């Protein structure tokens, strides 16, 4: 899923400083699962913003609303009754950064992102998330024991490890497992370590961001 985390409260307060009526919109998709922008986090941020503004003597009329998703236009449409009557002068989105862009595309309102969209990943344990993919557009993990050297090696090496791998850790930080050590261990366990002799050519990044913004069209699904 998309992993995100809330921006610092000071930053959010500064964003909405000039506004008095704000609609805070959560999302029940990825950001609910990673506890960044679901109904619960919307409640906490909403309360914190109201407290801060009330204390400052500049009360904020903030209404909380959480959509099924913010990355599909039909759900964004559900905000129309709230955003087309002048009731709010700004929108604060707690979805991944797709959400605020979809809201801004549909409504002529000032839209702010309350989250930083951080990476594509999964939870290691409750409350801990890590990066596992950087959507390079051409998955090659089967060559590496099912582990991704693109997103999980600090240098995205196709032929690792580099000389900085030490004691299973990456030279960039002791907090980072060297994925090439993990690949070596796993290939050994799978009895496939000989396959590591193969030299992989440099990656074709045209399927990644280097090819410009990406788009998928599925004629079979169009209505």
């Amino acid at each position, binding site marked *: 899923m998309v992993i995100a985390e809330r921006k610092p*409260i000071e930053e959010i307060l500064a964003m909405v400083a000039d506004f008095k009526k704000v609609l805070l919109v959560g999302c029940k998709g990825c950001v609910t699962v990673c506890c960044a922008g679901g109904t*619960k986090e919307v*409640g*906490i941020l909403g*309360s*914190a913003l109201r*407290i801060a503004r*009330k*204390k400052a003597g500049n009360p904020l009329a903030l209404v909380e609303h959480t959509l099924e998703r913010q990355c599909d236009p039909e759900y964004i449409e559900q905000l129309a009754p709230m955003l087309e009557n002048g009731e709010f002068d700004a929108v604060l989105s707690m979805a991944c950064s797709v959400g605020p862009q979809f809201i801004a595309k549909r409504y002529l309102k000032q839209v702010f992102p309350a989250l930083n969209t951080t990476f594509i990943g999964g939870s290691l344990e409750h409350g801990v998330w890590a990066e596992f993919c950087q959507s390079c557009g051409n998955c090659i993990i089967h060559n590496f024991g099912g582990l991704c050297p693109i997103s999980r090696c600090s240098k995205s090496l196709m032929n690792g490890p580099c000389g900085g791998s030490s004691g299973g850790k990456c030279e960039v930080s002791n907090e980072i497992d060297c994925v090439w050590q993990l690949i070596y261990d796993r290939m050994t366990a799978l009895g496939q370590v000989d396959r590591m002799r193969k030299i992989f050519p440099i990656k074709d990044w045209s399927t990644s961001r280097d090819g410009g913004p990406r788009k998928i069209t599925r004629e079979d699904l169009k209505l």
Partner: protein
Amino acid sequence: MRLNYPPNVRIVAVPCTGRVDMIHLLRAIEQGADGVYVAGCMEGECHFVSGNLKARRRVEAVKKLLREIGIEPERVEMFNVSASDGPRFAAVAREMTERVRGLGPSPLAKDHPLDLHLQAVG
């Protein structure tokens, strides 16, 4: 056992302090409580194993959030009180009342600045 505790403390009962979420504490502050504290069981004695430990982490998270928005984090606290220890319950209520009295009324309670209002949860 009939023990006195300050009359400004309003008790909100929950089945276990593990039920207490950040939003419950924030709502109390938002609605003008001068302070709010969670009275959980002693550590190691939670009937649900770790409810009181989770409550403590959430109290810490609320304190951090309050600090970020300029509200004294001391207005929120976690205490461990054995369910059978009435005297300690009363002592905690007095301690928190004194602490909050020292901090003064909540900046959000401008309508009733002299009314000391505490909420115990748990």
